């Protein structure tokens, strides 16, 4: 059958043409500019920029903090998704809505208030200071900002799969004498593991590039609390566009690769999921 003749609906050429034009102009052209700028830099220069100890320390800080932020989010996100799906309690709808706050609140505002809240004289920080825990202007602060901005990823990935988990399996396991931890680790966790991993990975990718929330709370001390995004911003401020492009390429390629892996994992998972149900 000729595909073209079978098309009843109008607007194919128009919508495809405009979409491709729009994405070329808005997304592709700027991205290609970055890549071609990067390719225009000599190899020696790239090596020089990318081996700067201050930058390497920023990369290290970024990866470590993003890692811990996503680990914390895996647990915290599971806890929140769990209580929101499993239990009825007063204010549940309110909490469910509030989980999206980090997506709706501008990152600059999040950074500003978290740094004040956890400063040594802040509402929360004053209770942590006697314990010797300083959050604002340390790596803990960076982790906190990343946890805040990316927690919805994990909660929103987990909620639908937890809702889909039919109680029959747990009832069957319980009637056969399984303990509560056994039910969780043998029945529930295997079911939600793919969604948990996808949510955590998304949270990690988001944290790698986080800028607005982090710079308010990090203190931005060279060799200690600078993140990779801030280094790009600093290079731009010094008109060192070549160094900025080199670092940007590293972050961009890492994020895109990670996201590609997540998408592949997601489509594999959904295929399996569709087969099972």
């Amino acid at each position, binding site marked *: 059958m000729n595909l073209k003749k079978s098309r*009843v*609906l*109008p*607007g*194919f050429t128009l*919508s495809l043409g405009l*979409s*491709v034009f*729009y*994405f070329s102009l*808005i*997304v592709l*052209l*700027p*991205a290609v*500019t*970055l890549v071609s700028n990067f390719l225009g830099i000599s190899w020696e220069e790239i090596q020089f920029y990318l081996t700067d100890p201050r930058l390497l320390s920023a990369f290290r800080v970024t990866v470590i903090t993003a890692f811990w932020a996503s680990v914390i989010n895996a647990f*915290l996100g599971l*806890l*929140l998704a769990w*209580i929101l*799906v*499993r*239990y*009825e309690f007063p204010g549940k709808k309110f*909490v469910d*809505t*509030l*989980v*999206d*706050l980090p997506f*709706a*609140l*501008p*990152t*600059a*505002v999040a950074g*500003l*208030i*978290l740094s004040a809240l956890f400063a040594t004289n802040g*509402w929360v920080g004053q209770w942590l200071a006697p314990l010797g825990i300083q959050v604002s202007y340390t790596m803990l602060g960076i982790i906190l900002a990343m*946890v805040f901005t990316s*927690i919805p990823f994990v909660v929103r990935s987990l909620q639908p799969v937890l*809702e*889909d988990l*039919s109680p029959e399996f747990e009832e069957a396991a319980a009637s056969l004498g399984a303990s509560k931890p056994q039910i969780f680790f043998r029945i529930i966790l295997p079911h939600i593991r793919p969604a948990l991993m996808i949510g955590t990975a998304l949270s990690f990718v988001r944290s790698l*590039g*986080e*800028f*607005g929330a982090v710079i*308010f709370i990090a203190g931005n001390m060279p060799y200690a609390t600078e993140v990779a*995004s801030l280094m*790009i*911003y600093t290079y*731009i401020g010094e008109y060192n*566009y070549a160094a900025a*492009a080199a670092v*940007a390429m590293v972050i*961009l390629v890492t994020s895109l690769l990670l996201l590609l892996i997540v*998408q592949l994992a997601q489509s594999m998972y959904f295929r399996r999921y569709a087969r099972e149900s």
Partner: protein
Amino acid sequence: MQTYVARAPSTGGKWLIALGLFFVAILLILPLLLIFATAFKSGWNAFTQNLLDKDMLAAIRLTLLVAVITVPVNLVFGTLVAWCVTKFNFFGRKILIAFIDTPYAIPPVVAGLCYLLLYGNQGWLGEYLSEQNIQIMFAWPGIVLVTIFVTCPYVARELIPLMEVQGKDEEEAAVLLGASGWKMFLKVTLPNIKWALLYGTVLTTARAVGEFGSVAVVSGSIRGETNTLPLHVQLLHQDYNAVGAYTAALLLACFALLTLVLKSIFEWFEQRKLDRVESIK
């Protein structure tokens, strides 16, 4: 298969809820309270004085201008993209769908840099533009462009899953019965995607108003001229003007709360529609 129905918590469940609510309180509720407390800590007069400061008003105006341009542009193109990838099957369809998501994967500062390299003075188009006396970087058009970039997936992302499920039978029936393209869209498609479209618009607006990283790169942060509200928060913070910074933060937080309220309302309507369809069946 049945889905899980929430029930009253057991003792262990109550502890879990308490733990979860403890984190919600510290991470989500205290920050909101802190904004209000700090913005009003020197009284109502200091708040209004900061609010009516001419740089603050300029930042509000610029932020609104950016949103007013960005949102309709992405609304139209987001709908077009969703229409194209959900109602037709063509070579490269999957690639286009994957492509829509790329702005999510690009960190804000990197996005800003891409635009700077393209439109800046040393950029590809920069030289031509400066000959024509058109300034895009460090001026409002640059801010609008990067904001369009970072917000372009939101509308399409909301529409695509929904329109994929809805299929194209209803539209095809309308066209075969003689409806024009416009009539079909307005009478058949639009009522079906209404709530998702509104929600996508709200998300786009929220992100457009609050974007920081990419705008920080291209704006130049000229006080009273190219300073958006989120950038103004940072500027006042660096000036040690806490009340001023929190006044700007308060405006943005109120907007974020409005976003959440609208989201709940849209979801409620959507759910009611689904329930009604379910009850007819």
